[in-house]
């Protein structure tokens, strides 16, 4: 199959695994909205108003990160419970096509929530078109990173019951603990570097930076305080995970 056919195959997987179930059961959107909106509501009630835009950016990123949890669960379910991944392995569809198709279907689920969060952000903290485009770029990179991580982890297990709690653990840790919903300045300065251990921190820093919220991590090394470092960090982690997902994940069992 040509590159074009593979790209088309990914879109078709997105159609029947993402758009089709969403169209038939719109309530599924509610499940994606619920957790980030609960966090946002909580922040709205207890935190100073100045921090609310951080919470809204956090909502967008949380939604993007949780596509990884959906990816993990869906891929594991289709492989272990339905045996459907095998049907795609024994076909001209390449592993990267399957991963992209599944990731796009997770994006379809997340898109309504993301659009709503972006809308709220534009109301509470207006910013320009360029910043908007940059923020969309950050969100897409975060989605890619989360989905490749989700797929990679899904292939390491043989039991669904092992995977379910693991997904929640990984993606809750990545989206709640690091400075996603709050500015990094809340963390004591000598411990701010620890946040860089979480890949989602780079996304949070970048997103807050591009919309002009500030509140980023400051270290004694000047380069580490620039958006370029965050972009390189997020890009490198995404590429690394994509490589691991494609080459080391069990597309073919050993």
């Amino acid at each position, binding site marked *: 199959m040509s590159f074009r056919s593979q790209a088309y195959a990914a879109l078709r*997987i997105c*159609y*029947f695994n993402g758009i089709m179930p969403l169209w038939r059961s719109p309530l599924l959107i509610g499940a994606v909205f619920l957790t980030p909106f609960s966090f946002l509501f909580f922040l709205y009630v207890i935190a100073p108003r100045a921090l609310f835009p951080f919470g809204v950016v956090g909502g967008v990123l949380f939604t993007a990160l949780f596509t990884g949890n959906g990816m993990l669960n869906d891929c594991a379910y289709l492989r272990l419970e339905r*045996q*459907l991944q095998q049907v795609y*392995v*024994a*076909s*001209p569809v390449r592993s990267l096509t399957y991963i992209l198709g599944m990731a796009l279907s997770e994006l379809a689920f997340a898109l309504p929530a993301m659009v709503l969060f972006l809308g709220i952000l534009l109301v509470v903290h207006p910013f320009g078109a360029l910043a908007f485009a940059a923020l969309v770029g950050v969100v897409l990179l975060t989605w890619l990173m989360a989905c490749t991580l989700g797929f990679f982890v899904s292939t390491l297990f043989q039991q669904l019951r092992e995977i379910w709690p693991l997904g929640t653990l990984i993606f809750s840790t990545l989206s709640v603990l690091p400075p996603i919903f709050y500015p990094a300045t809340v963390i004591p300065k000598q411990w701010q570097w620890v946040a860089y251990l979480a890949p989602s921190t780079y996304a949070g820093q970048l997103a807050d930076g591009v919309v002009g919220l500030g509140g980023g991590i400051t270290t004694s090394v000047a380069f580490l305080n620039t958006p370029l470092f965050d972009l390189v960090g997020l890009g490198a982690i995404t590429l690394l995970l994509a490589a691991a997902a494609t080459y080391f994940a069990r597309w*073919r069992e050993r």
Partner: protein
Amino acid sequence: MAVLEATGVSKVYHGRRGTVHALDGVDLSIPKGQLFAFLGRNGAGKTTFIKVAATLLLPTSGEVRLFGEDVVAHPEAVRPYIALVPQEGRPFFHMTPREHIYEYLRVRGASGESAKARTEEILEAMGLRPFEQEPAYRLSGGVQQRTLVAMILATEAPFLFLDEPTLGMDPFGRRQVWEVIRRATRKGSTVLLTTHYLDEAEQLAEELAVIEGGKILYRGAPEALKSTVKREVRLQFSGGFTRSELGEYGEVIEDRKRLVLLTTRSRVREITERALERGSEITVGPVTLEEAFLELVGRGIEEEE
């Protein structure tokens, strides 16, 4: 010309319960257009072989070539020519049979027109018309399985791997699937089918292999396998006789709590008369693959490891 050639294929698993040889030096060749069946009990190695040949699993050693390509070294070269019905697979819960078939064909690169035509054809052939608009979660297990088989057979791939394709189907559904599988081979596809339904292997296979403990014990035509049983007639009893009483007439097999006697034609009259005197129910018929399998493997095909 053989399209599948396997040489010395082994798969070894090292686990807590020691080393398991799921496949142990399997040699096999399947010519183009043949319908080949793998017969064996659960855990005998049938699915493991299919997984290796269909590029799903790496073997520990040995080589499998499909259409001349090494499935281990060049899986991408093989995959466009194969399609697989996995064992105990289930369709997407929200999609209808029609959507499953059409979407799978489109994902594999078929044009919209071709996918539509093939979808219509297979829906008709597999008796899926009454269910074509029903989402899979509303379908019975048998119809879900038929959907999955239809999805794969519609590809018209040159090599079809069918791992227990009729599992859970009613007799009518099984016969419909058999007919579509036969049609696929008439169109030129080669089929490797695994089953533990002996009647299925007898009805479909031009050639079969019996696998047990990862080793091939027999390979040949189903008729030739049956002829390895030295007796001609099979009598099945429900009560009235003990094993030792029947032993004087021939070979006695206890299969699923029934006594089965394999004997020669000349002794049938005498035994049936005795059975009638005792009021025992008796079924008389020719020797089947079931007896041949029992004699070859030493256990019934339904017996678990």
